[in-house]
């Protein structure tokens, strides 16, 4: 029994799950039953993948012991590259590949600069936040490019599918990526290296793990996911605005942290990041439905982030205190 309790207390995403259930119950009550009806859930699930994809990448990177503040800018840059190429008449597949390639290059640059000059990723990616945003605005020429009609494969990314059109295609992409990343982190040797690199760098190095390459690869995964999420939003809206994704980097960090990811690295799960992202969407949506002034959103998010970290560290201490070991 105690052992079971300990296992659950040690799950970093536990606090997030509890918050989620409590908040859903409150909003369901406050909104007079609207919150959990199928129309509202459809709306919630339709927007979720965009935040959640970014949050998952940031979570993975934070577990690796690094940080990415540039995801919001990449979220705008990647679809902008795609849109500019589409406007110039290039086929979708080429434009799309170019956009994702740019995202990968940004991730590589972030990782390379961080690792080889040994500077905090907080700084490198803060710089990249401005650089990537600036490039986005410059290549857009100040006006969002006009996308030729019917060029975007909406059926593949944003069309409604499933019973009663419950999900968008983007939700299926999100589930697929979530499963893939979870398997990568928990079940592959590369995932073990990511966790070791973030958990205790000197140990990972002394065991011969190529920590620099691991970090650069993780930066690239994080950036790629941010760019991918950006293209989904642009396809949903139908127009690439150079300002999309502003502030998203901090929401993604908040999601990761609410989901139990430690800023110090080594601790966290992909599921935790997803739960954090769901919570952010739920608060945003629930406040509106409860007819609360929407400007309270940031206050709620901020308070939840701090509260979640306090609860998480308390739970971790509790779990550690439960001794079930028969030591020598």
């Amino acid at each position, binding site marked *: 029994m105690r052992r079971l309790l300990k296992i659950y207390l040690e799950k970093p995403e536990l606090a997030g799950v509890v918050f989620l259930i409590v908040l859903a119950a409150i909003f369901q009550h406050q909104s007079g039953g609207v919150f959990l009806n199928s129309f509202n859930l459809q709306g919630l699930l339709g927007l979720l993948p965009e935040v959640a994809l970014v949050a998952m990448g940031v979570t993975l990177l934070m577990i690796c012991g690094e940080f990415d503040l540039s995801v919001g800018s990449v979220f705008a840059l990647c679809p902008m590259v795609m849109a500019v190429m589409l406007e110039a008449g290039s086929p979708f597949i080429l434009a799309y590949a170019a956009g994702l390639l740019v995202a990968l290059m940004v991730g590589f640059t972030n990782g390379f600069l961080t690792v080889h000059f040994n500077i905090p990723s907080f700084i490198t990616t803060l710089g990249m936040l401005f650089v990537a945003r600036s490039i986005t605005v410059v290549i857009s020429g100040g006006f969002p490019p006009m996308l030729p009609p019917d060029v975007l494969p909406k059926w593949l990314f944003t069309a409604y599918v499933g019973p009663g059109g419950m999900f968008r295609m983007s939700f299926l992409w999100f589930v697929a990526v979530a499963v893939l990343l979870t398997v990568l982190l928990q*079940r592959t*040797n590369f995932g*073990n290296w990511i*966790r070791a690199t973030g958990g*205790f760098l000197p*140990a*990972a190095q*002394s*065991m011969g793990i190529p920590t620099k390459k691991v970090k650069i690869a993780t930066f690239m995964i994080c950036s790629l996911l941010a760019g991918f999420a950006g293209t989904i939003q642009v396809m949903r809206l139908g127009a690439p605005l150079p300002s999309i994704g502003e502030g998203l980097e901090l929401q993604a960090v908040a999601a990761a942290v609410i989901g139990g990811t430690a800023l110090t690295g080594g601790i966290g799960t992909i599921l935790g990041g997803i739960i954090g992202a769901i919570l952010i969407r739920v608060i945003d949506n629930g406040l509106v439905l409860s007819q609360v002034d929407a400007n309270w959103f940031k206050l709620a998010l901020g308070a939840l982030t701090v509260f979640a970290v306090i609860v998480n560290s308390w739970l971790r201490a509790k779990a550690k205190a439960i001794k079930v070991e028969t030591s020598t």
Partner: protein
Amino acid sequence: MTEPIIQVRSLHKWYSGVHALKDVSLDVLPNEILGLVGDNGAGKSTLINILSGTQTRTSGEILFEGRAVDFRGPRDAMNAGIETIYQYNSMVPTMSIARNMFIGREPVKYGLFGFGMLDTKRMADESVKAIADVDLHLRSPDALVGELSGGQRQGVAIARAMHFKSKVMILDEPTNHLAVKETEKVLGFVKSLNDLSITGIFISHNIHHVFECCDRIVAMARGEIVLDRRVEDTNMDEVMDVL
């Protein structure tokens, strides 16, 4: 006369203007436990870092089992059979014992280009066995290393080295920051290396510990070897004098 397992010939190491190793030559015999002592900055860490592949030499030669070797990273040394256990131990506290046992050497299923799915069952089974082999009793291979005591962690590190059939085990100040009882346990591990036909290089600045568990003492000062004796041919005062 048995052939030395490690032969170091005229090893020099320069760091940005500092001559850290000055013409060091040393033979380590198979199955002996060599105690390496010296003050901070004497060059003992540099020497073992070169042997474990984390630093490269400026000049000189290293022979392992009679063949010249050139370690480019810790992995090369480990593959050759030299495993190092560091002072601040080579374990990740936020990971389980089973995962720590196999960091960087995970058994994989369905592997491609060196990446693959972890064989978690094998990792769990083999770590249970490896830990039992060093006479350490831990509840579960899934327990986090962060919850183990310092001595237990060193025990797991030693179990890991044995599991991977290391021929030479370098222990870099393994008894630092340990309680008395834990220290006894670690010294016990070191003494047991003999029975397992493993060569040990034990680094410490606690001369008592070295005399307790080593067959031979090598003392370093200012980048040179200043004393090299069998334990029975020397005493603590003599070692203290040269340091």
